[in-house]
């Protein structure tokens, strides 16, 4: 009985630790002057989560990604990358349709069809070679097109930066990721999820040094980059020009 409680506590210990850390920072950071950014009302909490994320990244994610990058030959990496990206085309196509972009939606489904068959379960991106360019839609963007505002900026460990709206969108998009639908084998599912995380992290390795050296404050730099990027995506790469203040 006692043992059971203990292992339960151990399993949930990290959550308690995170929560305590977050609370401590909200309390502690309240006194220090911070950018009163209306987009980031929970900056103290987010900065704490960012530190947690950086810790995990440095200790586990980045070394794994480096090893993966060193071991995997480029064609194999491209196969892995294409495999995961192919599955996203279901969500991309659906979201294009939900935003009233008929031809882009059909383009997404055509890609899924071609790559899943001719491209052997998505390992080869044949569709791009045929001129079906990969779309770039997700449910967060669909919500934005429907008029849902950004909501507060939220940084979570592993998941990364989001706005409130995009966090909801991200969750919905995961439901449209059919790889998990019929997978009862938990170990296989977890392995596939882990491989996806490592592959996507490895793709970001070249950007690490650029961001590290460019930023005065990495947290604020990434926040600005994320918000600009989302703004551009919502406007399909043609956002209204930034205001020039002179």
């Amino acid at each position: 009985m006692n043992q059971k409680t203990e292992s339960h506590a151990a399993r949930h210990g990290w959550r308690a630790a995170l929560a305590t850390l977050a609370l401590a920072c909200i309390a502690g950071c309240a006194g220090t002057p911070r950018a009163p950014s209306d987009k980031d009302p929970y900056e103290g909490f987010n900065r704490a989560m960012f530190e947690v994320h950086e810790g995990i990244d440095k200790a586990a994610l980045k070394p794994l990604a480096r090893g993966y990058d060193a071991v995997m030959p480029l064609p194999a990496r491209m196969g892995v990358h294409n495999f995961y990206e192919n599955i996203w085309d279901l969500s991309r196509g659906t979201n294009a349709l939900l935003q009233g972009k008929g031809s882009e939606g059909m383009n997404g489904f055509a890609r899924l069809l071609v790559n899943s068959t001719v491209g052997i379960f998505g390992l080869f991106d044949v569709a791009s070679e045929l001129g079906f360019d990969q779309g770039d839609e997700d449910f967060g963007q669909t919500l934005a097109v429907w008029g849902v505002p950004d909501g507060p900026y939220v940084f979570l460990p592993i998941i990364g930066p989001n706005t409130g709206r995009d966090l909801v969108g991200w969750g919905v998009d995961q439901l449209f990721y059919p790889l998990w639908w019929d997978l009862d084998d938990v170990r296989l599912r977890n392995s596939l999820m882990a491989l996806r995380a490592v592959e996507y992290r490895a793709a970001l390795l070249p950007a690490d040094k650029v961001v590290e050296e460019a930023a005065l404050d990495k947290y604020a730099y990434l926040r600005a980059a994320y918000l600009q990027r989302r703004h551009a995506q919502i406007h399909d790469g043609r956002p209204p020009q930034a205001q020039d203040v002179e």
Partner: protein
Amino acid sequence: MQRLFAFLFSVLLSTLALAQDVAPDVLVRSVTEDVLAAVRQDKDIQNGNTQKTIALIQTKVLPYFNFQRMTALAVGRDWRQATPQQKEQLARQFQELLVRTYSNALNSYRDQTVRYRPFKMNPGDTDVLVRTEVLQPGARPIQLDYSLEKTEAGWKVYDVVVAGVSLVTNYRDSFAQEIRAGGIDGLIRSLEAKNKSLAAGKAA
């Protein structure tokens, strides 16, 4: 014969680049190709020789950038309260930081190519956007856009936008934060400290 042709062509290109009324899209294309050609044949740059990369950028890229304007954009509203001397210091430090960022990006060059998107402008335009795409095998193309303005010394780039992210306005939040904490001089000091630590890191 072929060599002679190549020589004549390169002379033609460099004269084009020097001409003040060269069109903005032609300017972006010639500078880009010039830089890529230099990187492709330089193993040191591909292996991450920062000093050499920075030298390349200083000779081939900087003449076509307007750093005063870039810094004004990055600082935003507080720019107006800076003295001419502070403005000059800010621009110098910001330039050093951006050159280093650009050199890091060039060091990670593998075998990307650049596609130039169709460009049109009206005769009287003084502010234009030149759109390009960086193509790399096995990855989605990355949008890379340049904002240029017409000055007395020809067209100058004042913003670079990568995948929708302006490398200039991306600094606004951090700059505003520094200015709130220590004024314009505080921001200058932070930039100086950052540049110094980067330069020291390279030597180590």
